[in-house]
């Protein structure tokens, strides 16, 4: 009984202690300097689970518990990136169907999901990596292309600064989003 209560207590502590990390969820000025919009119409669909995606990867055995709220930042950053990257951007809040795509003349729809989130905490600093998978469908919902993107941010003394882990997470997400947009802009149907 004592062991059980101690275990439960420690589990509770794990949730109380540590870092609750929310990224700002907005792109830096570097993004708009890197990406220019292209004259394409494209829709974006984000599965509901993406917006709720969290990770409790603490990065090392000795590190404090950390909760990374990835989805809540990734969603707005993807929307902003598509706004920046394409002249005609449409956000789909409903699952894409042939009827919808044809009705609105949408030639391409991109569906993004989180594949993996990795955190590595060391004595010197922290490295964060976010991997996503993007599927591009045509107006008949046929698979056009599928690619994985990875964005990472690595720095020292992250936890010693106010907002350090939050900005490091934001930078990793932005790097991932940049890879997605550049890849999408690169293909020519």
């Amino acid at each position, binding site marked *: 009984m004592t062991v059980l*209560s101690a275990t439960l*207590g*420690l589990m*509770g*502590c794990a949730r*109380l*202690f*540590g*870092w*609750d990390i929310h*990224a*700002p*969820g*907005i792109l830096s*000025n*570097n993004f708009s300097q890197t990406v220019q919009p292209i004259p394409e119409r494209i*829709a974006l669909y984000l599965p509901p689970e993406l*917006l709720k995606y969290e990770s409790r990867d603490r990065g090392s055995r*000795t*590190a404090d518990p950390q909760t990374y709220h990835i989805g809540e930042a990734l*969603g*707005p950053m993807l929307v*902003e990136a598509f*706004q920046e990257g394409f002249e005609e*951007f449409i*956000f789909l*809040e*409903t699952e894409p*169907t042939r009827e919808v795509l044809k*009705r*609105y003349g949408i030639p391409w729809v991109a569906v993004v999901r989180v594949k993996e989130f990795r955190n590595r*905490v060391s*004595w*010197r600093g922290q490295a964060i990596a976010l991997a996503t998978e993007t599927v591009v469908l045509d107006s008949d919902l046929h698979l056009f292309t599928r*690619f*994985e*993107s*990875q*964005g*990472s*941010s690595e*720095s*020292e*003394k*992250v*936890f*010693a*600064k*106010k907002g*350090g*882990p*939050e*900005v*490091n997470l934001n*930078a990793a997400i932005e*790097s991932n989003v*940049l*890879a*997605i947009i*550049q890849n999408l802009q690169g293909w020519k149907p």
Partner: protein
Amino acid sequence: MKPRKSSQATSDHPARRVVQCCLAAFSLAIVPSIFASEVMEESGTRVIVREHPKTGKPYVSIVPFQGEIPLDPFTGQRKYSRPDYRMLDPKIKSGQIPYEGPYSDRKKIYIFAASLAALGTASGAAVTALAPAATGAGASGGAGAYFAGGGAVVAGTAVTAARVNRSDPEKQNYTLRSESRLVKEEEKK
């Protein structure tokens, strides 16, 4: 009197009336389009315009046609200024670059946890586990209890000193990476 007559004659001019009618019709068409506009019952969707939760920039969104307009998936998000990733540079001290985004206040969490423990909400074993950590955090001003984080502070200081002595000032102090790769169908299986 003559100019007044002339003015009346101008306002009654048929061409002017046509222009006024066109402007009225145009303004009537604009107003609903700001909120919810086109309804496509065949596809079970409607088109609305939403504002980006962080930037306020409007974008087109297609939502299910279900009477009420669904809640914005990004509802409740706060606006922050764009992050400056130069603050990830270990040479940049905390607060040197303005940051107005979210941050995890570890000290508050420890105080809250300690108060809960004092009230007996946490188990006895948890209190034992909590006490030294909370004391460490309070004493060191938020830099001691986080094992890796505290280490990062100490090690980071040493690294900063080491960096001053480095002969290669061009060395990158933080790393952002973006990459994408195509996924072949056979890789999925």
